[in-house]
């Protein structure tokens, strides 16, 4: 290894350590407990477009710790977080890696608006903790609804005339390029069809209480007012299984332990999943996820693009 390579790695070890230390300090300061959930799971989620890596014997590597962390919330845990590797097959690119580091946290008693504030507080704390100037960010971070964003960038309102193909094609071709020109923005109130496990808005049934934070067009996190109703949970699982089938993908087994926990009772809460590698990219101004990896030469093999 050349001296230039090793000094790059040493600098990166330090940056990653500062970010992880600041994240843990922030959550400790706010009364959170760090938890660990299984990496090998029987039900890897319900997302139509997320493929889990099978480990054989009906088990998968977790695509996210969501379902297990929510079981802890149902058990009565009020403030929990963890930093855990997540695995998604067929995802490889400048902003995607088959294995990546995820920060996920749940805060009971609050909704997505308070979660937006908490996310900004975390961001500000981490930026301070790694001594990076402001990373070009100003607080408070501006907020825009999905409808408004699409009206500005693509000339239509997704919640009023839902068209999934058009929505994502426009996202890739005009909305994301539009977001790349904005240092930081919180995009919120997604169309109901993209609710996943978020709460539908009480004032407008066509939107859900979900937000994503973007830094220079890079999606950093995805958060919800979490769905709590057990019947709606069952509907969403069934609907997701059908959507996967219709798309030619194998539906995953439904997670009975999770559904049982929800039936037992899930408190009102907000949850957030944040890509740690992407946060480090944003803080260091790098354009490719390999540039913040300590082992960029270890290429994952998951049939993706390199």
């Amino acid at each position: 290894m050349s001296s230039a390579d090793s000094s790059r790695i040493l600098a990166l070890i330090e940056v990653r350590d500062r970010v992880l230390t600041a994240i843990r300090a922030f959550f400790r300061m706010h009364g959170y407990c760090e938890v660990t959930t299984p990496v090998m799971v029987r039900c890897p989620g319900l997302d139509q477009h997320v493929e889990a890596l099978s480990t054989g014997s009906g088990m998968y590597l977790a695509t996210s710790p969501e379902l297990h962390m929510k079981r802890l919330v149902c058990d009565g845990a009020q403030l929990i977080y963890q930093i855990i590797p997540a695995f998604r097959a067929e995802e490889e690119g400048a902003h995607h890696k088959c294995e990546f580091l995820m920060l996920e946290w749940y805060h009971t008693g609050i909704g997505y608006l308070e979660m937006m504030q908490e996310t900004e507080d975390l961001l500000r704390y981490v930026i301070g903790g790694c001594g990076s100037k402001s990373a070009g960010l100003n607080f408070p971070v501006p907020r825009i609804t999905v409808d408004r964003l699409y009206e500005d960038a693509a000339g239509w309102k997704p919640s009023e005339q839902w068209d999934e193909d058009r929505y994502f094609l426009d996202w890739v071709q005009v909305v994301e390029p539009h977001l790349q020109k904005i240092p930081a923005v919180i995009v919120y109130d997604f169309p109901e069809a993209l609710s996943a496990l978020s709460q539908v808005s009480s004032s407008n049934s066509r939107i859900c209480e979900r937000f994503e934070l973007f830094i220079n067009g890079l999606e950093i996190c995805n958060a919800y007012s979490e769905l709590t109703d057990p019947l709606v949970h069952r509907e969403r699982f069934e609907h997701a299984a059908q959507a996967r089938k219709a798309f030619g993908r194998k539906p995953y087994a439904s997670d009975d332990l999770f559904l049982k926990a929800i039936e037992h009772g899930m408190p009102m809460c907000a949850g957030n999943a944040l890509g740690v590698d992407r946060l480090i990219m944003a803080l260091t101004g790098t354009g490719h996820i390999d540039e913040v990896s300590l082992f960029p030469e270890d290429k994952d093999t998951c049939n993706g693009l390199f």
Partner: protein
Amino acid sequence: MLDTTALRKNLKIIIDGDPWIVVDCQFVKPGKGQAFTRTRLKNLIAGHTMDRTYKSGEKIGEQARIDECEMVFLYEQGGAYAFMDNNTYDQVELNVDQVGEALNFMTENMNVEVDFYDSMPIAITLPNFVELEIVDTEPAVRGDTVSGATKPATLSTGYNVNVPLFINSGESIVVDTRTGAYVERVKK
């Protein structure tokens, strides 16, 4: 028929009857959405580019049948670049767009690969490593062979590279034509 899994930089592909080369491709996946590949393609005959976005798994086109022929670069005259087949002495000409970035590293009498589509020369590929002379750089710093520090240097083609401090003007170096990076000094 090729689909998006075949997409990579420098793939040559026939789309609607025309040969294209992939100059850039990016994996994009919006939250809760399906994956896409954003591509920039260059028409191998006319030289213009177009941007296309494909859904993952979508069919794109046919694999282009490209014939490759080893030729020597003879000279440039009025924007036309002449190459000769070493066996048949046949000559062909390419324009500046077709020669493209190879210009940064190509010198007369260099052996290159010329790509033909339907008997038309459309592009060239340089060897991965070529030797080129440094025509301008700061004088060498003695003894400094370990620090990893570099300085700018101009090649005989006019292209600028970063080289270690111990390299002098008039010396030749090996350059990686895929990245444009310095590889090593040519021992005399």
